[in-house]
C-alpha cells in the first residue's frame, strides 16, 4: 500500500507549515530515517524524516508552499513498480480517500489564505505609521487595491455533504450503529427524524470472510431493474453500491418478509461475472454493501442481474417452476424455483414483495 506523507504538526499551536526544501526526488529510494524535507513553522525550521522505507512516488506540495497540518504532501510507495503506478495517476487520488479529502481542504485553505491579510490591510490606514504589528500586516497587502478573493463555493451534494438529521436522530443512529447515509440512500427524507432511525433495521454484524460462493441455489432469480425507482435510488446513493449487491439486499428483504426467515443468504452476480454471497444484505445499509464480506454457507437464493442486457430471464437446466413479473419498462423479475423446496405461495409472495420494493424503495426500510 502506498503511504501518505502528511504535513506534520511540529508545535502545539501550529496549523500550517512551509515546505522549505525536499531532500528526495520522486523515484528515489528512501529509508525511514532519511531526511525527506525541511519544514519551517513560525518557531523553527526542522528536518523531517521519511518515516517509512520505500520509494518516493510523488510530491504533492512543492518547496516554498505553505500547507495545512495533516494534508498529504507526498506519497511513498513500497517499491519502484508501485511508485510508477501511483505517479501515473497524476495526483495520487487512487491512494485513498485521505488524499482527496486533503485536496479539498487544501483548495479551501489556499483560497481563503489571503483573506486575513486583506482584512488587516483594510484596517491599516487608521493605525499610526510605524506601529509594529499593524504596519507589518499592512505591508503584506495593498489596501483597497487588493483583488477580491473569491470564497470557495459551498460544498456540493457529495462525499463530504453533511446529512441533515435532528440531534436526537443523530444520537440514536450513533448509539445503534446505523449509518445515516445508508438511510438516505435507502430513501429516507431529510432531515432524518428520530422515528426514521427508530424504525430502521439494526445493521448486521459483518460476516466472516469466506470464498466467494458460486451462484447456485435452489431458487434462481433474474432481475432487470434499469428504469425503476430502485434505479433512481442507486443513482443518488453515495457511494453507489454495485447494482447486483443492491438487488440482492432488496431481494433479501423481500425474502425475509415472505418467508419469515431469521437469516437470508443471497448469492448474486451480474453479467460481468462478479459473484458474491451476502448474508442479511438487507440489514447492511446500501452504502456499505460494496464492502460486505462474503458469507459462509449455502445461499437461499441466487440472483442474476440482467440489467443492461437484452435478456429477460433464464431458466436453469434443472428447471422447476418459473414466475415472472414485469413492471412496464421499469423492471422485469423472473424466479425459477423447485416447488418441493419453496412452495408456490411463498415464491409468489416473495416475487410480489420484491416488485413492490423496486417500485417504492421506502418499503425496504419499513
Amino acid at each position, binding site marked *: 500500500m502506498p503511504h501518505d506523507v502528511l504535513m506534520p504538526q511540529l508545535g502545539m499551536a501550529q496549523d500550517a507549515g512551509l515546505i522549505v526544501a525536499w531532500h528526495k526526488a520522486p523515484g528515489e529510494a528512501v529509508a525511514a530515517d532519511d531526511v525527506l524535507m525541511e519544514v519551517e513553522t513560525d518557531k523553527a525550521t526542522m528536518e523531517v524524516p521519511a518515516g517509512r522505507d520505500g520509494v518516493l512516488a510523488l510530491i504533492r506540495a512543492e518547496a516554498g508552499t505553505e500547507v495545512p497540518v495533516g494534508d498529504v504532501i507526498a506519497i511513498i510507495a513500497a517499491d519502484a513498480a508501485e511508485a510508477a503506478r501511483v505517479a501515473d495517476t497524476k495526483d495520487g487520488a487512487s491512494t485513498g480517500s485521505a488524499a482527496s479529502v486533503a485536496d479539498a481542504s487544501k483548495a479551501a485553505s489556499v483560497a481563503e489564505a489571503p483573506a486575513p491579510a486583506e482584512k488587516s490591510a483594510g484596517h491599516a490606514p487608521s493605525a499610526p505609521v510605524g506601529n509594529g504589528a499593524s504596519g507589518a500586516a499592512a505591508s503584506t497587502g495593498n489596501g483597497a487595491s487588493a483583488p477580491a478573493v473569491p470564497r470557495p463555493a459551498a460544498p456540493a451534494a457529495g462525499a463530504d455533504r453533511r446529512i441533515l438529521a*435532528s440531534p436526537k436522530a443523530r444520537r440514536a443512529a450513533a448509539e445503534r450503529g446505523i449509518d445515516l447515509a445508508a438511510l438516505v440512500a435507502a430513501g429516507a427524507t431529510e432531515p432524518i427524524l*428520530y422515528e426514521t432511525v427508530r424504525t430502521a433495521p439494526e445493521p448486521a454484524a459483518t460476516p466472516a470472510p469466506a470464498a466467494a460462493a458460486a451462484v447456485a441455489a435452489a431458487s434462481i432469480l433474474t432481475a432487470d431493474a434499469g428504469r425503476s425507482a430502485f434505479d433512481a435510488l442507486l443513482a443518488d446513493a453515495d457511494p453507489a453500491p454495485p447494482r447486483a449487491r443492491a438487488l440482492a439486499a432488496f431481494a433479501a428483504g423481500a425474502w425475509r418478509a415472505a418467508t419469515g426467515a431469521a437469516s437470508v443468504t443471497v448469492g448474486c452476480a451480474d453479467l460481468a461475472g462478479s459473484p458474491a454471497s451476502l448474508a442479511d444484505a438487507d440489514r447492511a445499509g446500501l452504502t456499505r454493501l460494496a464492502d460486505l464480506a462474503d458469507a459462509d454457507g449455502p445461499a437461499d437464493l441466487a440472483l442474476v442481474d440482467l440489467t443492461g442486457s437484452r435478456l429477460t430471464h433464464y431458466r436453469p437446466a434443472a428447471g422447476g417452476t418459473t414466475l415472472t413479473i414485469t413492471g412496464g419498462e421499469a423492471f422485469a423479475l423472473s424466479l425459477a424455483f423447485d416447488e418441493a423446496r419453496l412452495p408456490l405461495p411463498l415464491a409468489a409472495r416473495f416475487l410480489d414483495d420484491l416488485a413492490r420494493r423496486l417500485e417504492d424503495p421506502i418499503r425496504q426500510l419499513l
Partner: protein
Amino acid sequence: MREITLSKAVNEAIAEEMRRDPTIILMGEDVAEAGTPFKVLSGLVEEFGPERILDTPISEPGFTGIAVGAAMTGMRPIVDLMFGDFLFLVMDQLCNQAAKTHYMSGGKLSVPMVLRTNMGATRRSAAQHSQSLHALVAHIPGLKVAMPSSAYEAKGLLKTAIRDNNPVVIFEDKLMYQDKAGVPEEEYLIPFGEAKVLREGRDITFVATSSMRQVAEKAAETLSAEGIEAEIIDPRTIVPLDEATILASVRKTGRAIVVDEGHQSFGVTAEIAARIAEKAFYYLDAPVGRMGAMDVPVPFSPALEDLTVPTPERLAERARATLRGEPVHAA
C-alpha cells in the same frame, strides 16, 4: 374544592398575610376605597385601615422609592403598580436600588418588597396599557419574577412572595381576574422555582407562562383529538426557573414550543428555548419553537390586537408542523 376568581385569590392572599404580619403595608394608586380599577383589593382598607392600605398620588417613582426604603428599614411593603406598562417609570427604584441593595450592603440590608403588577393584551387598552414586560425585570439579577397561571397559583405564589426577604415582582394577567379555579380553604404556599406539569403527553412539550397556559391547554385538547399528545409545563416563576422539570419533559418528548405573551424578540421564549437547546440538544428531534407576542406596539384596533398574541389555533398548527419535521419560517 371551592372555586374562586383570580381577583379574589389575590385579595385573600394579601388579607391573610396582613393579618399574620403587622409589618406588611400596601401602597399604590386607587388601592384603598377604589380597590384598584380591577376591584382586586376591595374591602382591604375597611379591614386594615388607611395606615396600612395607602392611596398615593400618581407618582410611581415616588411611592416605589418609599417602598424600597421602608423595606430596608423593617417593613414588608406591597407596591401596587396599576399597569405593568408603568414599570418603565420605576426602573431605577426597582433595578438599581431594590435589586442591588442586599448585594451592595454586603448583606447588611435586604429589601423584602413585593411589586404586584399586571400584563396581557386583548383588553383594547392600546399600546401603553397592554404590554407584558416581565422579561425586562427577569433580566436583572436580584429580582425574582412570578407569573401565576390561575387563581390557585396567584394565591400561593403571592403568599410566598410576601414572605420572601428579597424583592419579588409578580405579574397577574389582567384578562384573568375573573377566571375561576379551585383554591383550597386552608393555607398553602407555592415554592418558587418549582414548575408544574399541567398535562402529560409524549409528543411535544409546551412551556407556557401565565395566561398562555390557557392557550396551551386549548391547543393540547385540539391536538389530542388528532392523536398528538402535548405535555404542558407551567414554570410558575421565571426567576428562579425550574430547568429540571422543563428539560425532563423535553428529553421525553423530543420537541418543545415555548409560549409567552411578552414580545418574542429577546424575551422569555428566547431564554427558555436557548436553555433547552443548550442542555437537551441531543434529545431534540426538532428545533425548539418560540411563540411570543408580535414585535409591534400593541394595536388599539381589536382586529389587529388579536393578531399579535399567540392563540390556540396558531399554537396547534405550529405543533403539527413541528411534528411533521417542517422547517420553521414563521416569526
